[in-house]
């Protein structure tokens, strides 16, 4: 499959590892690195709530290389003459793929994690795409919250009470998500108001 086809079909944006693949693209664009280096940088950027497995990172880098979004070169290890390791570099398609990921909400993706990964590695020029993605996510959560059937406050059985409690849990989770998305948009907008030049960097 050619790089063009791979990008067109966005095969790399399928599956639960998509946020990690997207974040790796951003890290590659910042600077090339070998698998261990990229795994460390990824773990630092995504924070404690992510369990970044180094072996997974190697596997994901191979996948990205297979779709033409990264290229691996055998390069000498620094300070260890004669020995080499695989260093991953971005390709000419990497930046466009990263932009596409930034503005795409994937229905089967654990969405907030996906957005968190984007926020962790976003470039200033990604701000408009992030704002679009956050607004879409806010609306998606609002639509889901709207679908929750209201209770009438008079649970007549234990089963009805459990149902009410479940609905309440869903509503509370979605409300938190709506608040988080709105607050994040507000933070980004306020930053852009203070530093409008950030977009043109």
């Amino acid at each position, binding site marked *: 499959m050619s790089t063009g086809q791979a990008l067109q079909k966005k095969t790399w944006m399928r599956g639960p590892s998509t946020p990690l693949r997207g974040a790796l693209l951003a890290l590659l664009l910042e600077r090339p690195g070998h698998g261990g280096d990229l795994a460390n940088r990824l773990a630092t950027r995504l924070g404690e709530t992510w369990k970044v497995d180094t072996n997974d990172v190697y596997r994901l880098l191979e996948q990205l290389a297979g779709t033409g979004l990264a290229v691996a070169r055998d390069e000498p290890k620094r300070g260890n003459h004669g020995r080499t390791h695989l260093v991953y570099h971005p390709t000419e398609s990497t930046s466009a793929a990263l932009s596409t990921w930034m503005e795409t909400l994937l229905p089967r993706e654990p969405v907030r994690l996906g957005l968190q990964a984007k926020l962790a590695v976003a470039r200033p020029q990604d701000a408009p795409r992030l704002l679009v993605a956050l607004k879409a996510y806010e609306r998606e959560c*609002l639509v889901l919250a709207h679908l929750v059937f209201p209770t009438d406050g008079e649970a007549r059985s234990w089963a009805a009470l459990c149902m009410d409690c479940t609905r309440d849990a869903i509503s509370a989770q979605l409300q938190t998500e709506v608040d988080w998305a709105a607050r994040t948009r507000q933070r980004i907008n306020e930053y852009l108001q203070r530093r409008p030049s950030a977009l043109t960097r």
Partner: protein
Amino acid sequence: MMQLLSFTNATKAYADGARALRVLDSVSLDLARGTSVGVYGTRGAGKSTLLRLAAGLELADSGSVRFEGRDMAGMTSGERAWLRRGAIAFIAAEDWRPLAGESVMDHLCAGPLGEGVPVHQARLRAQRALDQVEFRSGAAAETAALSLSCRSRVMLARALVQEPRLLIIDEPAVMPSIGDRDRFYALLRRAVRERRISLLAASEEIAALQGLDVLVSLAAGELCSTEPAGVVVPFPSV
């Protein structure tokens, strides 16, 4: 189709020290006759400002707020106050001002009597409203001694007595029990459905607004809606 209430690029800012704090930023929202819209937002998000603009208690700095096609800004303050005594009922928790010794029935009849409605008709309206909020037994109770839950029901009854076309309700009360809160909103939904009143309700809790036709969130002056802009939701068939 003429909307009952229509916000078009409505903007409202308040002074925050030396700078202007934009509470509503070019907000557009349509409310068709007989439909209900819930406005969700955290404290300070601008919900109350949106509702006060809808009730004509404040005017937009730019853009327009129209009720039945008439721009609120084009009305006199007397015309807007007249609307709030009839076509638009506005309920906010801070507006609860019971009088010493006043009964719930007297409290409910005060509005219609002030508009020249005959006593027996005012009492009939009040009785019907108390039935609707399931507080028939409270007619003789003293308003100053009501529990939070009963107070909210009486406030709703007072709005219903007015026989409005639009009911605007701003977080009516902090209920001591979740069951009381859910029961109140169930009564509210049923009342507006049965009386075919349009509803604009605001709350800090999404759960309180479930079951309404449209849900919107308000943050940083910007609206996010479950409905695409311009979509009119028809009144559900009963």
